[in-house]
């Protein structure tokens, strides 16, 4: 599977109801200063925009503006979208196969609680 297949994918609960969309993926990469990485890279978690999401909020997420430092007039908008974003640990995804990922909504927590 490619990471691009995860981005934009819906997340549904066990009842099949869509509750979020994947807008970013966090990866743990044990890359030291020396030659070659010290171990496998793993998917740590998913950044989610709760469904339904406006086109404008989706754009903010996909451009990374909700996670990056944003200055100027976009800042309050990006911060507002970031406040709505959720983070789901990869181990809490029950199913990766299929058209949508399956995970319980209660497993997700506010993105602002996650220290990247």
């Amino acid at each position, binding site marked *: 599977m*490619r990471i691009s297949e995860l981005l934009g994918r819906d997340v549904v609960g066990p009842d099949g109801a869509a509750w979020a969309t994947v807008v970013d993926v*966090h990866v743990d*990469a044990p890359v030291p200063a020396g030659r070659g990485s010290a171990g496998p890279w793993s998917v740590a978690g998913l950044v989610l925009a709760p469904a339904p999401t406006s086109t404008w909020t989706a754009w903010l997420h996909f451009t990374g503006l909700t996670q*990056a430092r944003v200055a100027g007039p976009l800042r309050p908008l990006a911060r507002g979208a970031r406040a709505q974003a959720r983070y789901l640990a990869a181990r809490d995804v029950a199913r*990766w196969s299929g058209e949508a990922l399956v995970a319980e909504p209660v497993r997700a927590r506010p993105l602002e609680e996650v220290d*990247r």
Partner: protein
Amino acid sequence: MRLSVNLDLLDHQVTDAEKLPIARVDDLEISVPEDGSGDEPLVTGLVLGTEAAGHRIGGRVGAVMASASARLRDRAQSGPPIVAVDRVEQVRPFLVLTDAFPDLPQVARLEHWLRRHVVAPDRGGDRADQ
């Protein structure tokens, strides 16, 4: 080191061991665990090159990009070049691989061809790196 795929990896410059820019990260290959296992997916490789970018962009433009790039691919290769993540020795501010460009023939095939046939055709491709 925790990385954001969107902010730290996709579309970021990849260089060889000598810091020569060779490609950009256009996708990541991952292996997903069995459903219900509670395991985390593993990132197994960086997918480089225009062909992968075309697939990610999609639509007619993406299809043209992917098709044109695929024509330069070695016939033995079934898809765009993938570099294993254990060949990555640095991630920020750009990705650095442990290998030098001549040791990565599957990456940037157009550049390899130009080196051999345009830049140094009289001296040979190997000596073009001196």
